[in-house]
């Protein structure tokens, strides 16, 4: 347990240690660079894009890649490169709130399950197992069918389907910590439950969950893109990588650059976050390095 305490990021210097550790690993460095580039282009998207990503320009429609339009234009004459950059912003707008939300709720429920009475633990575990038993995309489709497609729907689906994963990990960690000496000592001194959970257990659990979250981001980006590809995610004309793929697929013989423009960012983003997550995991907690 002392290991976990020592490796938990608490101060800036420890964060710096983690970043240096990741950067020393070649794959981690690649991941760091890719993620950095995606975040940068998402934050400054409005200044980077050469054209308005939703402005139609019919005379220039279905143009191949050229000096004026690096990745060509779509069937409405919109600049693909601008839409790709803006799409990155949309992807992060869905992924980050969804994952933070799922992490917060999963953490709370998991800690309650691990620390609370047995019946509550059993109930929450059954609930988690049930939610995990829906194939993610099928569940997403059912929810979309019910409440209609929108950005909020995607965020909700991602949250609902990933809460169990965070919850289970938080519960296991809580169960192992529960009988450790420093927690028993706190209890003997009469610390309240909220103090034990919030002040003493939380710092020891959050590191593991953060790694899990980093590795979860690609899944979420892919799900958002997938739903938008099916026309069930973000609404047009919002530029999403999935929407680009949808337009490209419909006219795959005329505008194949749309498929490349929508597909490659997803692959690159997924690679970046996966490399970063794997490397982060090895640095933060080498014990987690198991099969996968």
């Amino acid at each position, binding site marked *: 347990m002392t290991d976990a305490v020592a490796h938990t990021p608490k101060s800036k210097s420890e964060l710096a240690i983690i970043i240096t550790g990741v950067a020393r690993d070649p*794959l981690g460095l690649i991941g760091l660079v890719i993620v950095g580039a995606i975040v940068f282009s998402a934050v400054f998207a409005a200044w980077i894009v050469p054209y308005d990503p939703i402005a139609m320009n019919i005379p220039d429609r279905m143009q191949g890649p050229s000096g004026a339009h690096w990745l060509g234009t779509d069937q409405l004459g919109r600049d693909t490169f601008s839409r790709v950059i803006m799409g990155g912003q949309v992807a992060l707008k869905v992924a980050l709130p969804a994952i933070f939300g799922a992490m917060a709720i999963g953490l709370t429920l998991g800690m309650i399950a691990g620390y609370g009475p047995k019946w509550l633990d059993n109930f929450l575990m059954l609930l988690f*197992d049930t939610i995990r038993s829906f194939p993610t995309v099928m569940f997403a489709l059912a929810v979309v069918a019910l409440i209609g497609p929108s950005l909020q729907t995607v965020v909700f689906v991602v949250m609902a389907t990933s809460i169990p994963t965070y919850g289970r990990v938080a519960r296991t960690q809580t169960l192992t910590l529960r009988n450790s000496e420093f927690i028993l000592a706190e209890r003997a001194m009469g610390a309240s439950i909220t103090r034990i959970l919030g002040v003493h257990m939380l710092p020891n659990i959050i590191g593991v969950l953060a790694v899990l979250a980093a590795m979860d981001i690609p899944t979420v980006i892919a799900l958002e893109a997938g739903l938008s590809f099916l026309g069930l995610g973000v609404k047009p004309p919002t530029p999403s990588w999935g929407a680009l793929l949808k337009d490209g697929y419909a006219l795959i013989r005329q505008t194949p650059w749309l498929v490349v423009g929508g*597909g490659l960012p997803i692959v690159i983003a997924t690679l970046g976050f996966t490399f970063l997550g794997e490397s982060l995991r090895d640095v933060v907690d080498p014990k987690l390095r198991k099969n996968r």
Partner: protein
Amino acid sequence: MLLFTLKRFALAALILVVAVTIMFLMIRAVPGDPVSIMLGPRATPELKARLIAEMALDQSIPKQLMLYFGGLLRGDLGVDVFSGREVTTIVFEQLPHTLKLIFSAITWSAILGIALGCYAAAHPNTWIDRAAATISVSFIAAPAFVVALLSLLVFAVHLQWFPAIGVGEGFWGTAWHLVLPSLAIGLSWVGYIARLVRASMLEVMGESHIRTARAFGLSERRIIGAYALRIAILPVVTVIGVGMGFLLSSAVFTEIVFARPGLGKLVIDSITTRNYPIVMGAVLVSTGLFVISTALADLINALLDPRARTNT
């Protein structure tokens, strides 16, 4: 073992019951009356009245839930809003297409992944091992529908080596049409399985019965193929069982991209026509499939490794 089997299936049944209840309550929790949502703009008073009577919407919620469960036990998932056909029939017509796709994908990726994993474990820390590890991570990262689209673009549209749409006829036609879709679904599994086999293989190779086999002078190839692999393959069984949900999810996208019939196509088409009972039916059937395959994976594991029986 019998007790374990019973317990595991009881848990699976319980999960299914809760899953159905959640689905059911979700439908009822949607604002507005379900009939108008289901029928959309096409709702005529007669159609509405028929649906209300059929779904017992005039009853109390617990009563409705009981009726729904009763129907499920008889294999009745309701009827198609428009054609009036049984949802069960429609769903089970499409299911074989999806299963064929999933099994072909998991078969090729498991064979290749196990071979890669064995090779990497036999030659640890060589450049081949490192290259395999890097490629594994990269492949795990590739979302099935993006691989599907890019392979459609390159191999079907541009090079025209493979057909772009449909399922084909006859054995060879079917197999030919399965190549690209199962490539898309299986690709991320190759790396995953390879890593899994490599890790568990290295673990097994350190055990005493392998040392004994070595002492008897058996060839390394024989030790890995005949003795170590038998145990090292266990995690793959579990992972495939648990990964069923993931496979089903990838199949949805792949079916759309390659315009193949199947559960995914059925659900998407039903969403666009707001054909509600079919969406629910297909989701429930795929959930059932997932729950059963997870339970089966646990059972196979318990059968092969007695230590796993005490965990649940």
